[in-house]
């Protein structure tokens, strides 16, 4: 059984790839962020550091053609020595919608998490939220497979993908959440919805393009009768007509040496009779 220079089973050298996913080479080791550190810890439990380092070399050569993180599964194609690329998948349990609703409620419950997540950060305490719900964020085992003939797990193709994955996590902590079943946009949106996100213009109304309304171009979208109904049903709190003048901090405007608000008050009181 031929053994390659790096100690791996190698019948033939892998076919060289142009434009594959390359591991980054400029920055030093990954794992500077706590979440990617956690993932690396996990990987080191599964395979020895040497294998991981070799996966990195393989990855640096760009042999990983593509990689996709989807709920429950990371899939990738890795160019080995055979013409057809090997298919790699790394599976974990994706959490159900209901579980995520619990998580989101718990996260929204503390402004700290919300603020951090919305700012693109991943506060370490978030792990406790997941753990408390019995739904750990990081897996303790990985269900891995590769279509290569190598029986060793992880094979070098898997190692290369794991390495790239750790790197991707380092850059975007939300990928871990995506792997568990929640895309970044969805998570942030529901966090915003559960709390006050950015201030919303109370007068904002989404528009339907005119081209989509050619059939009823001349007609209101709700019948005028319905609009009148709504108007009649609306209960305005009884209020004195000069309420705004009283409730607001008066503007520093004087007219002929009298405060503006004093000048207006009498006229406002007569408004209901108009």
């Amino acid at each position, binding site marked *: 059984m031929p053994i390659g220079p790096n100690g791996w089973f190698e019948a033939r050298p892998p076919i060289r790839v142009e434009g594959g996913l390359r591991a980054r080479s400029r920055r030093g080791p990954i794992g500077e962020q706590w979440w990617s550190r956690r993932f690396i810890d996990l990987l080191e439990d599964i395979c020895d550091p040497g294998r991981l380092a070799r996966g990195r070399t393989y990855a640096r050569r760009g042999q990983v053609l593509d990689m996709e993180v989807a709920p429950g599964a990371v899939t990738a194609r890795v160019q080995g020595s055979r013409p057809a690329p090997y298919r790699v998948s790394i599976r974990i349990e994706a959490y159900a919608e209901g579980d995520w609703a619990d998580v989101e409620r718990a996260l*929204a*419950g503390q*402004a700290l998490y919300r603020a951090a997540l919305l700012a693109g950060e991943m506060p370490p305490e978030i792990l406790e939220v997941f753990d408390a719900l019995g739904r750990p964020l990081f897996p303790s085992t990985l269900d891995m497979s590769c279509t290569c003939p190598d029986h060793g797990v992880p094979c070098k193709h898997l190692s290369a993908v794991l390495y790239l994955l750790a790197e991707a996590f380092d850059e975007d902590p939300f990928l871990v959440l995506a792997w568990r079943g929640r895309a970044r946009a969805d998570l942030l949106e529901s966090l915003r919805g*559960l*709390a*006050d996100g950015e201030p*919303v213009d*109370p*007068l904002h*109304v989404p*528009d339907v*393009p*005119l*081209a989509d309304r*050619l059939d*009823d*171009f*001349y*007609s*209101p*979208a*709700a*019948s*005028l*009768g*319905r*609009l*009148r109904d*709504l*108007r009649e049903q609306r*209960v*305005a*709190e*009884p*209020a*004195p*007509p*000069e*309420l*705004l*003048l*009283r*409730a*607001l*901090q*008066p*503007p520093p*405007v*004087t*007219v*002929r040496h*009298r405060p*503006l608000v004093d*000048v207006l008050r009498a*006229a*406002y009181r*007569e*408004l*209901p009779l*108009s």
Partner: protein
Amino acid sequence: MLVVHGAWVDRLLALWAEATGPLATTAGDEPSRHPFAASAAELAAAIGTSAAGAAQTELTIRLPGSPRGPLPSPESGLPAAARRPRLMTWRVPTVLLEPTAALTLLESLDAAPEDEASTDAAAPEWGPASSLRYLALVGDVARDLVRRGRILPQLSTGNGVPAACWAPVLTGSDAAEFRELAGAMPPVCRAVDGERAAGERAAADVLRDALAGLVDGAARRAMPDRLLAGHRAGPRHPLADRWLFALTADDPALPGAKPADVEALDGALRQWLASAYQLHGPVRVCFRLGEPAEDEDAWVVEFGLQPADEPAQYVPAARIWAGERLPGLPPRPDEVLLAGLGRAVRLCSDLYPALQQPQPTELAVDTAWAYTFLRHGAPLLRAAGYAVNLPTWSGLRGLGLRLTTRPAGARADELSLDDRVDVRLGLAIGEQAIGEAELTELAGLDVPLVRIGGQWVELDGRQLRSALKAIEERGTGQMTVREVIREVAAGGEDDLPLVDVVAGGLLGDLLSGDADRRLAPVPTPDTFHGTLRPYQERGLSWLSFLAGLGLGGILADDMGLGKTAQTLSLLLSERAGGRELPATLLLCPMSLVSNWQKEAARFGPSLRVYVHHGGTRKRDEELAAAVAEADLVITTYGTAARDVEALASVHWGRIVCDEAQAVKNSATRQARVVRAIPAQTRLALTGTPVENHLAELWSIMDFCNPGLLGTPTRFRERYREPIEKGRDEHAARALRRATGPFILRRLKTDKSIISDLPEKLEMKTWCSLTPEQAQLYEAVLNDMMGKIESSEGIERRGNVLATMTRLKQVCNHPAHLLKNGSRLGGRSGKLARLEELAQEIVEEGDKALVFTQYAEFGALLRPYLAAHLDRPVLWLHGGLPKARRDELVDRFQSDDEPMLFLLSLKAAGTGLNLTAANHVIHVDRWWNPAVEDQATDRAFRIGQRRTVQVRKFICVDTLEERIDDMIEQKKALAERVVGTGEDWITDLSTERLRELFRLGPGAVS
């Protein structure tokens, strides 16, 4: 006919119009010109006074269409040419109205024309398109904002020259309404973009501009001429002085102002406006008033925050100061709380001590403080966007008068307004009677919030004093029944309402408001042909009772419950045993004259009826003689207005107003006319829920029992304002007590009514022809009878069928026969009746199926009805693909909005399940009852839980009535004879046909 559209461009209302008839001016062949738009001059002439002096120009607009021309609006009734329309740019002549003129025009759309004569005959006829009616609604919103003071003065700096203007403040429910309105905006309003190339504006931007313009116009109209006495501020005066002057001046512009001054003033005013929007932020400061424990005086006001859209999520101040971070709260909730408390002190200075603490959580207060807070602070804070939680009893229990009567004599079975009764005035708090001694004791307490029997009650000093005075002055005594009724109708005094009335005997029955159930029933008179249902007999006994007392009433049963039959039975019952009585004058819309005549002949053939209407109506002595010989005189509101003097000189036993909505506005000429005719008693018939429109209720009540509810001003203060503005339950109950004796309203959904009703109520609706229809009818008949006479066999058959088709088209509408796209309003008796019925149906919140056998008539009706009802009118015909039909059926079945479903009999006669409808109208007749019944069964099938009302429209004294008679006769003989559609008619002899088709003298009313 011009169909006038509206859009908003900068600060101006832009009007443009489609012309449905021939154009006065040639549009020319320029490709980008709207080919059937009216010229600006033509448009301005049609609009009349509000367009006087308005700018006329040309705007570009984007409309769907093809290069040959844009799609016409549905209101125009013009055929759509393009199959696959796309957006294209067109130039349209436009009239631009200043906001004030715009407001006047938009307001005039809602007001019904007073009577036919008031419109200028020379001006081209015009009607508003949806876009303009939509803007009229925006105008209502603008006026309402101004009336409620939701405006602030600003300095606009948009167009180079600074100008003074009024800006709307749209917060809270006003912002919600803004979003609804913008979301519903007709796309055509967004397709005009001023001088710039026609674009696609955001609905919110258009609405913002329109509201700003209309609010500015309405505010200027509402404000006094000068906000500040003194001389006009000239260019040398400080900018603020000039600006204030310009806020009400004709010219709002402030030319020559120094940029630095403008910036300073503008900045201050903008900040002011911005702070108004903060009042109704997503998070509210909340005040909770907690009542003290038994035997204590220790009240407390707690502070907290709550999200505006989730009031249940209340966070007490203590937790906020503790630094707790909570979902739904802003990053610094403590700041929000503090700022909110600070603003609250401006409205309720009693809260000031709270701000003296470093971290206020609550304020301990005494009873007097709590009372002031309940009365003054709380409503103000609520109005300013604060959340205020008060104990559940607040505002509910107050001091009121309780009136107890006992008949003075021994008569129990009779009642007259002059009878004297013993009366005792007492006091009550809520439901609980309270003695004078107790009251005197309370008056000595000097604290306006007291605990009585373990419950807190708000009592103010003024109220206590007037209560004591009232008891002192008129504690016990005697009154006439008339005085008691007046007392109840007046509902007590402002600060001492009448909260309870205890009366026995017939007076008690009357005042109870359900006299119809308590009175001994009056049996159906022998002379009444037909059977009164049990509830109708109760109605009859109520009508007889009121009439016997000389009181007027409002019979407001739901449509279809038989107001006509009950009224006729009253007339018959009064005349039982040949009693001679002065005649009843019945006023109704023209479209109902035939119906009354027919129904009177059917139910009460013994009644002598005289119809006073039309050019041949009797005058002077002849009229007097006719009236003297009649039991029932039927006339229209229009005729009554013209003949008011002659009618007022007659001694009437009763005046009945059918469709009493006609007198709902006391200021209209019709209402004045009706009041000017004296009568012993009055009766109003209406199907609309009068109790929901209080101004109308006053007007109709005042017609029935003049003066009983007092002046409109007094009525507004005592009932309308507290109910409409404050949702005051006391006032609502008092009003029910005051008017209940005079209103009988049964709903078709009442359990006791349903059990009296069959599952299907079939009615014939008798219509008349307009003179135009009659002329056309004669013309068609003359032309076609000749052809029938001179033809044979198949050809004759074809001629007979063609004649019938054309005559039926004339009965539907002249435009249906002529197919010339002419206007629809006011030219057909059937259409008038359909409009009224449809209006009633949607007002009752119901849905109706309207069948016609002519697709082209349905196509005419749809836009017309949609525009007049302001409710969806769906239209299902053979030309629609299956998917579209299913969509319509789904919408009709699932949408909870009242609406009409127009259906072509051929396309929709079978198969569909339309049980959401509880009304079916057959506008024209298919001479095969089986086909009609099948169509009717779209609504009347499994899943239908309500009584289905089926109405068949028949034009009186035309072929429609005669064929209906034949069907009825044949039906009686054998169902199957008529099973072959219209064919059996073609075999009739020419003589029989002539008789069948003839136009009788009763056709035109």
